[in-house]
């Protein structure tokens, strides 16, 4: 009898143990890895919401090929409308629901990201590839946060350096969105111009909902600018260039990577985007590299029929690439969040469709331990939104 009781106790303990190892409450089971994300599918920032749909297609492609080390990826992404309150509510709902997320990937927008970064870091949930180039992610670096998008100020520095040193522009102005995103661009323009012994001739903050661009163009015209760096939204960038044309102002315009979707920009600006130079953080949609061809096939198979093969859809793949690479390196039975962090730290010179990415062992004093790359390249919009690569990948100190 005693033996029977002991056997029963042993069996129960074994069953409980097995069930805990199959589902330890950290977003993995024997057959699944749960990954979360957010992005605006509605609201003024919705054009960037295509990023999470790109990640969705990427994970479906991986699942179709058999998943990663015996597990399928279950991707949970929700529409936050670029509203930080909704981002926080959505992330908490995912994390505190029946199946918490093993990790988060992508996630559009600095303000939405800022709303959840502390929550995720406190819960020790890895967040890989934020789809926003804020400095907050790595300043100071956070153990569970890995980014592969060069900060905005670095982009702005590269653009400004090109304007001054290659195009010999002398009177450079910056029009920036009056928030963290825009101020990142402003900082980079200032830093690079200072290196060149110059200053911006004009710094114009723009509110997100402003639609009347004439006062801006008036000021730019009065300042006799020969180059303008735009760090504003898609619609505002088009209106600024259109109003400049109507008011007979034609400087060289430069733009952030967020306005680098040339086919879209060319179309909605009725061709005025031609000649604009922007930074870019991944291979262009026209690229025929083997990896891009593979992704294009995934787009054909898994994207909805209304989806467009554009820069931001592709970015959905790029932001998730380091996560997938690290997961592939972890044997089935050894997958934990801590192990994921370890494998990410081991990524050196990883090449996906973005810049070469490397991380290091966590060092709170070294942003580069979590900032996988600082590189961008410059590209110019040609007729019909075609793209001319002006530089190779550039990384400035």
């Amino acid at each position: 009898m005693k033996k029977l009781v002991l056997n029963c106790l042993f069996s129960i303990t074994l069953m409980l143990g097995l069930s805990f190892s199959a589902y330890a409450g950290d977003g993995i089971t024997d057959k699944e890895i749960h990954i979360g994300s957010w992005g605006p599918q509605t609201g003024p920032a919705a054009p960037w919401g295509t990023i999470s749909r790109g990640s969705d297609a990427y994970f479906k492609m991986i699942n179709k090929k058999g998943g990663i080390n015996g597990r399928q990826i279950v991707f949970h992404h929700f529409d936050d409308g670029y509203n930080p309150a909704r981002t926080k509510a959505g992330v908490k709902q995912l994390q505190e629901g029946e199946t918490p997320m093993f990790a988060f990937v992508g996630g559009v927008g600095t303000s939405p990201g800022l709303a959840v970064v502390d929550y995720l870091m406190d819960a020790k949930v890895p967040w890989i590839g934020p789809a926003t180039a804020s400095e907050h992610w790595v300043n100071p670096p956070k153990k569970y946060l890995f980014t592969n998008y060069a900060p905005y100020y670095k982009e702005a520095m590269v653009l400004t350096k090109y304007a001054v040193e290659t195009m010999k522009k002398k009177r450079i102005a910056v029009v920036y969105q009056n928030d963290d995103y825009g101020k990142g661009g402003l900082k980079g323009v200032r830093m690079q111009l200072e290196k060149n012994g110059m200053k911006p001739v004009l710094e114009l903050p723009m509110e997100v909902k402003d639609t009347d661009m004439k006062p801006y163009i008036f000021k730019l015209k009065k300042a006799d600018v020969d180059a303008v760096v735009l760090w504003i939204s898609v619609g505002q960038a088009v209106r600024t260039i259109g109003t400049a044309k109507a008011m007979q102002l034609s400087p060289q315009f430069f733009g952030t990577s967020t306005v680098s979707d040339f086919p879209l920009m060319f179309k909605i600006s009725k061709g005025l985007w031609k000649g604009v130079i922007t930074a870019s953080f991944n291979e262009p949609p026209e690229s025929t590299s083997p990896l891009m061809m593979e992704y294009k096939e995934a787009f054909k198979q898994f994207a909805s029929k209304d989806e467009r093969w554009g820069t931001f859809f592709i970015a959905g793949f790029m932001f998730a690439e380091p996560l997938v690479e690290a997961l592939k390196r972890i044997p089935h039975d050894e997958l934990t969040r801590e192990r994921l962090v370890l494998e990410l730290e081991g990524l050196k010179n990883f090449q996906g469709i973005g810049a070469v990415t490397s991380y290091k062992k966590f060092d709170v004093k070294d942003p580069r331990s979590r900032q996988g790359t600082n590189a961008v390249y410059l590209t110019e919009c040609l007729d019909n939104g075609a793209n001319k690569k002006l530089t190779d990948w550039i990384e400035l100190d």
Partner: protein
Amino acid sequence: MTDFLLVLASGITAGSSYALMGLAMVIIYKTSGVVNFAQGEMGLISAYITFMMLDYYGFGYLATFFWAFVFALFLGALMEFAILRRAKDPSVLGLMIITIGLEMILLGLVSWKFGADPKDMPFPISPFESIELVENIYISVLEVLTIGVATAVMLILFLFFRFSKLGVAMKAVQQNPMAAKLMGISTNRVLMITWSISSFVGALAALLIAPANMGPFMMWDPLLKGFAAAVMGGMTSLGGAVVGAYIVGIIENFFGTFISIEFKSVVAFSIIVIMLCVKPSGLFGRHYVKKV
């Protein structure tokens, strides 16, 4: 002097689209006392119907604009007949909340059907081509058209409310619906026509805004500025809404150009606050006193 004239011209052109939205809001307020917050999205959906006919189906401009305006008239009538008229024991506040709900529904419909990407609205006039008014003062051709349309709409509406039987009936319905009913005016029909006209004017505004900036949220700013203009003008005065719109546009441009571009966007709303504190009836508004 050139700077002054240039900024003045910019203010007037900005004010024209606000004026159309302000007029559309005033028309409904004049007859029903309701501030229609769905006004922008009613125009938005008409603009997207126009876009669909031109871009997807390749209709000509004339046929498209004709059917878009017919749609706008029908949409306004439908809103009043199918939704607002069905409200049980409606208070003005309740009706305004309904318009906010309608605004969200229409916006959701547009986002669902057409997606969130900005669109390139085909239009016979380029929004970025300009003419030189006087030396170094340029104004886009589309803005000239907008000023012309706003002025014409204001005049037509003024004459309509002043001299037509229907216009007078509309005013009567606003001042005293019961007395109007007793005088043989079909208040329901009058309200339905009012919503149709307002929807038509809103569609005009949206069609003139869309060529430069088409997306699901393109009407937010014009609606808010149009509302500010209508409040400034007095909410019941058509002329007041137009004057208010031009004042808002001009102040915004002068403020943004010569004082602070950072706070340019809040000027319109500061005007609302100041006006409501100092002269709640607006510059040209008249408030009828009801005996109880």
